[in-house]
């Protein structure tokens, strides 16, 4: 009887700990995108060259946090305060190209702004086209 009580207490404590820890995990804040960007469309067409160029930019600038396939499991991801999220998920992929362009250009929190690093806007559009190939 005593054993049963102790094991039940351990289970309850474990459940409570999980609940407390998950309670501390920051929930992602909504990221509003200005109307101007929502209306933007990608001027590039997805062909092999554009995907290859986009992949090159992804590997150099994005992969260390977002991971090879966009799962958010890059080597730097663990050090981030905010979760990079799963960019291959339908949730992330349902964003239009203009929204992604805005988020990559401007950045927020741990996500750096790339508008100065990638001064040629075409490079951002290329990486968005590559990002679409990560869709699960």
């Amino acid at each position, binding site marked *: 009887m005593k054993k049963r009580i102790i094991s039940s207490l351990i289970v309850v404590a474990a459940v409570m700990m999980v609940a407390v820890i998950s309670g501390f995990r920051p929930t992602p804040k909504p990221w509003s995108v200005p109307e101007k960007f929502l209306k933007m469309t990608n001027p590039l067409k997805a062909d092999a060259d554009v995907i290859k160029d986009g992949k*090159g930019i992804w590997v150099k600038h994005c992969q260390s946090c977002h991971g090879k396939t966009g799962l958010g499991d890059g080597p730097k991801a663990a050090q981030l305060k905010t979760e990079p999220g799963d960019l291959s998920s339908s949730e992330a992929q349902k964003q239009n190209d203009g929204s992604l362009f805005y988020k990559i250009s401007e950045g927020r929190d741990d996500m750096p702004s790339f508008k100065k690093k990638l001064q040629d806007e075409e490079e951002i559009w290329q990486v968005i086209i590559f990002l679409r190939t990560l869709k699960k």
Partner: protein
Amino acid sequence: MKQLLHFSSRYWMLPLLVISCWAAQAQDNTEPKKKPKPVKNTFDGLMLGDIQTVMVPQKHTFTLDIQHRFGTWKKGYEDFFGLFAPSNIRLGASYSIFNNFVVGAGITKANMLWNIEGKYAFIRQTKGRYPVSVSFYGNIEIDSRKAENFIYRSDRVAFFHQLLIARKMNEKISLQFAPSVSHLNSVEGYYSSPGKVSGVMNNDQVTFSFTGRYKLKETMAVFFNYDQPITKHRSHNPHPNLQLGLEMTTSAHSFQFFAGNYASLSPVKNMMFNRNDYREGMFLIGFNISRCWNY
């Protein structure tokens, strides 16, 4: 009369048709033609080992450089292949004012040598327009040791001019050829005849430099540099330099690790006074670290 009117109205339509066709064609011509863009990333940094590359970072990029050269590995275990031998260090910084112009400055441990440098990219390899990228690199060096080391103040100064011509052959291979002229204001002298002093070396040195890079993957590459001195001096002719290395880059960092013959961190001193002969195995290990920020 009615028939004539009908006929003339038909012919009256003809110029209208021609004008409308011309207008349609003109409209076609005004459609924006895609301008060919310059080739990107012929190399990933301002330098590759001891050699400048044709690259100039995009405008408002600030770069910090740390360069380190160990001793030659000739002594083997005695100084742990040169890693525990006296080393040379350079700290430098540069800033791209425009998309095709960068200026920088630095200080080197050996001789407390300051340098001011600039690079201007005047041609960028562009499909159908320019087969190569061409840049000019200029460098002024000032030896800041105590005055007792010099006769005249101008003896402290040396100059380096280099033309950098590079081509990105494909996504993997980039090649560069860079002729340079090094100039020393003061060289050692000797009495060539009673009362006549001649220089042991010329004041100028022409060198041809060859660089190649092969990308193993997007963020990793192997490279070589070979520098062939062209000028023949009376004595103290410098040895060529052979350098092989590995380059790793990230979004903002570049790390290069290599072995070569150049021990100095000044291009003038390297090109004019290299005493390390690769045929005698006088190689040393070096590394370059650079970090850039975009403003």
